[in-house]
């Protein structure tokens, strides 16, 4: 069951991601992107990370992609300029080396079965509290500092965005 879902969702995610690159209209790219994120959210669910899946939907599909689509519409990028710059040497080298990297990584990941090291979250813990409770307990104890740092980062991001986008009058 899990495998079937995984293969379907993973496949769709990969295809959608490819279409992000190959779609002509920027808006279509963005929409394929949304689909891809959705599928990744499903993959997170399969990995028992419902919280992450919902975050993925809310943050990526809901907020970030909405921003991007908003920007695309505001800039009115209906069709990209069609002229080709030709495959530059640097691009070919880049893509080539990426493909090599891809093959290497695939070999590593498919070849070796990684042995799990048991961490602090046992099945029992999850069963007693529920996944969300466990996550929140850890988030607000062990990971409090990173959490606060991230909030500062977000604030900085908001301030930066406002400063940048503010029209000089």
């Amino acid at each position, binding site marked *: 069951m*899990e495998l079937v879902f*995984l*293969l379907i969702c993973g496949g769709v*995610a*990969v295809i959608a*991601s*490819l279409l*992000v*690159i190959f779609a002509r209209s*920027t808006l279509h*790219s*963005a929409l394929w*992107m949304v689909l*891809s994120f959705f599928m*990744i959210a499903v*993959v997170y669910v399969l*990995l028992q*990370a419902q*919280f*992450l899946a919902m975050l993925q939907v809310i943050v*990526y599909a809901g*907020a*970030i992609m909405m*921003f*991007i689509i908003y*920007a*695309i519409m505001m*800039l009115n*990028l209906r069709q*990209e*300029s069609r002229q080709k710059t030709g495959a530059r040497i640097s691009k070919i080298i*880049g893509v080539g080396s*990426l*493909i090599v*990297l*891809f093959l290497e*990584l*695939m070999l590593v*990941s*498919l070849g070796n*079965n*990684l042995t799990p*090291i*048991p*961490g*602090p*979250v*046992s*099945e029992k813990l999850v069963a007693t509290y529920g996944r969300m409770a466990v*996550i929140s307990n*850890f988030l607000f104890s062990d*990971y409090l500092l*990173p959490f606060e740092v*991230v909030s500062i*980062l977000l604030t900085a*991001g*908001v301030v*930066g*965005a406002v400063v*940048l986008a503010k029209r000089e009058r």
Partner: protein
Amino acid sequence: MVDNQSIYLALAITLFIIGAVGAICRRNAIVVFMCIEIMLAGVGIAFVTFSSANHSLDGIFMVIFVMAVAAAEAAVGLAIFLLMYRKLGTIDLDKFNLLKW
């Protein structure tokens, strides 16, 4: 026979590479931005895979923080694109050769 975990990892790697290829090949700034998000998503899957294999939450928290960073990145990035569009009339990255304005 490969187990599920390897497939998750393969998916993560594929997404990462697709994102990287897109980031290299495309010139539209917004598409490049989205490709980077795909790379982050691939990394995220890898994190969660390991996390679930190891019964640890570290991977999940990593992804949560990555998402927060991505959100901040989106806000600032789009503001920059807007500004760039205002300045140059395009968001083609090849035309984007100013170091400061």
